[in-house]
């Protein structure tokens, strides 16, 4: 149910995310000092091309990675296969990508 192509997508998206995850955890530890507020987060991210690229890439990679990961679980634990499995994979991918893109847009652009 995973062929070479899906396997490569899964591993490449993982490699892309490894440094991003470290950056994300570092920002979390830094930002959580003294409590979280919308103003503080937006002050850091709004209008910043750097953060938009960082989190844009993160969202794209995690959408691929999450969709393929859930595909494996759907097949091995729920027994989904064929068109249903492919359709579900695409649906999860597009769902994560659109929600994630909207979130990145919300905190970086306006």
């Amino acid at each position, binding site marked *: *149910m*995973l*062929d*070479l192509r*899906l*396997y*490569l997508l899964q*591993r490449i998206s993982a490699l892309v995310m490894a440094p991003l995850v470290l950056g994300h955890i570092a920002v979390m530890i830094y930002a959580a000092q003294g409590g979280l507020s919308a103003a503080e987060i937006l002050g850091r991210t709004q209008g910043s091309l750097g953060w938009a690229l960082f989190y844009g890439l993160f969202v794209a990679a995690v959408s691929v990675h999450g969709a393929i990961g859930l595909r494996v679980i759907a*097949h*091995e*634990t729920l027994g989904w296969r064929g068109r249903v499995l492919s359709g579900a994979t695409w649906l999860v991918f597009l769902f994560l990508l659109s929600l994630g893109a909207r979130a990145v847009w919300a905190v970086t652009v306006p």
Partner: protein
Amino acid sequence: MDVSVWRGTAEGAFQTFQVPARDSQTILDVVAWIQQNLDPTLSYRFACRVGMCGSCAMTVNGQPRWTCRTHVKKALKNNKIQIAPLRSLPVIKDLAVDMDPFFDKWVRAEGVFHPSKTRRDKVEALAPQTAARQTADAGIECINCAVCYAACDVVAANPDYLGPAALNRAWTLVNDAKDGGYDKILEAVSDHGGCHNCHSMGNCARFCPNELSPMTSIAGLKRATVKSFFKRKA
């Protein structure tokens, strides 16, 4: 001691027998004793009795084992033994499973020899110390017992998956200078049920009675397929 043995096919139940304990006794001895002394209709499979033929694998107290080389003392829990057929293979009767799906997958993984020379060519000289030969040697002691196949949770969850034994065989051929099927094998193991479904949980290496590591072989296949993918693109 109490020995409960699976009776039936996919449907069935465990039947308990009282078997005298001996000092030196394998699980296969126990099964044979029941068949010879208590119930001649008990079905099971064995041949060599010395760990070479790979016929007698069964599930003993929940673990897949070669029964002719498994001492009762090693498997005994609370003076009890439960013996069942191998997991993930159709049960023919009692302890004998149908090995066809297992061997069909060897063929599907191109785990067959691909001749590269004619009878008029010279015989290929094999240097035992080359890296490729040593990699192949690490996997060739497989006796086709299907213990790894029964131990693997991916096989259990995904019936298309080729499984550790077939993929291990494919990896030894990829590293065999005499074999001419390199590209064909890599293509076969890159398909939907291929090596990329392995999660490296290592049940195969944990239970292989010959202490091989199919998991390592499968990692080798993943590496080789990735390499050939980028080479073809370039």
